[in-house]
């Protein structure tokens, strides 16, 4: 508070101190060059402020180096899915990522991690005959918000709803509508039965074909 009073303070010549601070900080031209050139008050204050800002500029020239292994730690955390806690995320609109589905119960709530939903969906998808889940996310496709694991499966949870995306390979000759319908049905049934969540959509992307030796 006292500082603000100081800043509104004028020098004995009538010049506002704040004006001189701006002049020094921005290395700008004086507002009243003729007055300043001949004014001892202004000159004394300017010398003092230049000293102060000289040190500020020295700090600016420092190049503090981040710890050597910082990026390695970050990559490790990416691989393990260890992200900052949602509650402390800055600007949640920048990263609207929900990692848990929420189910309200009579006494309390149940949280189900998107990775758990992904595991259930993956197990269900593998039970559908003559289909394969892609082993890794297809890089031609944008990684959706709910991408939680290394393979071709993404889960987006919001409250008690969940949306699942799967990337598939089908055997050459299989009917895409029939196979995908079976896949959709199995995944929805399993996830809904085991988690109690509502599956709003299962999006399927057929990205590869393979020769089915058994057929």
């Amino acid at each position, binding site marked *: 508070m006292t500082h603000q009073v100081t800043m509104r303070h004028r020098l004995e010549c009538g010049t506002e101190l704040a004006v001189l601070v701006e002049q020094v900080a921005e290395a700008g031209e004086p507002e009243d060059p003729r007055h300043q050139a001949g004014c001892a008050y202004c000159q004394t204050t300017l010398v*003092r402020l230049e000293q102060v800002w000289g040190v*500020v500029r020295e700090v600016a020239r420092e190049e503090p180096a*981040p710890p050597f292994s910082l*990026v390695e730690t970050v990559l490790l955390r*990416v691989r393990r899915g260890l992200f900052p806690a949602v509650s402390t995320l800055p600007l949640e609109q920048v990263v609207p990522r929900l990692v848990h589905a929420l189910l309200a119960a009579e006494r309390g709530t149940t949280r189900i991690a998107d990775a758990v939903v992904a595991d259930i969906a993956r197990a269900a998808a593998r039970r559908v005959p003559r289909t394969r889940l892609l082993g890794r996310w297809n890089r031609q496709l944008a990684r*959706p918000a709910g991408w939680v694991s290394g393979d071709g499966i993404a889960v987006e949870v919001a409250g008690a709803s969940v949306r699942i995306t799967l990337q598939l390979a089908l055997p050459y000759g299989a009917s895409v509508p029939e196979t995908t319908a079976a896949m959709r049905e199995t995944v929805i049934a399993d996830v809904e039965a085991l988690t109690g969540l509502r599956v709003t959509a299962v999006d399927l992307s057929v990205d590869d074909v393979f020769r089915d030796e058994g057929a």
Partner: protein
Amino acid sequence: MPAVRRPERGVPPAMVLHTSDRNLIAAAQVGDLLAFEELARRHETLVYRVALRMLNRPADAEDATQDVLLLAWQALPRFRSESSFPTWLYRLTTNRCLNVLRSRHPSEALAEELAGNQMTDLEVEHALRLEVVKAAVARLTAEQRAPFVLREFEGLSYAEIAEVLETTVPAIKSRLHRARGELASALSEWI
């Protein structure tokens, strides 16, 4: 830069090193961790520097830098080149630091104040002066500190700072004006 780089997928490291940020961003947006690694290496210093100036504690700055880079990885698919990549990183960093400052206990702020005053015990006068400036910056309010760090230490223009902090140029000017005033009166006793 470490001598050994782990190839993640596809692109050989030698190619990555000569790729523009724009290409790396595009690859990282679709999940290329190697591209992200290179981006993180290119920009970790910027993030760490701002975090250190904002938080004035190396351990906190390191934590914040990690969180910002993780956040960048998560948010990259939504990054549009309306703002430049560094501007976007400045925004993530200042937001993260402002959150850290907000969550700091009031007694910690007091400890910071005391730490600032104890600097008189340092023997090297040059180091002392720099420390006094850093401590004085750390005592600015969070609202004043962000524009001050971005202007005085990072050299951003008023327009860039307004974009980073998502406000207007006049608002930045007035916050900066107050910050400089605070700093000038706090420092004129010391320097």
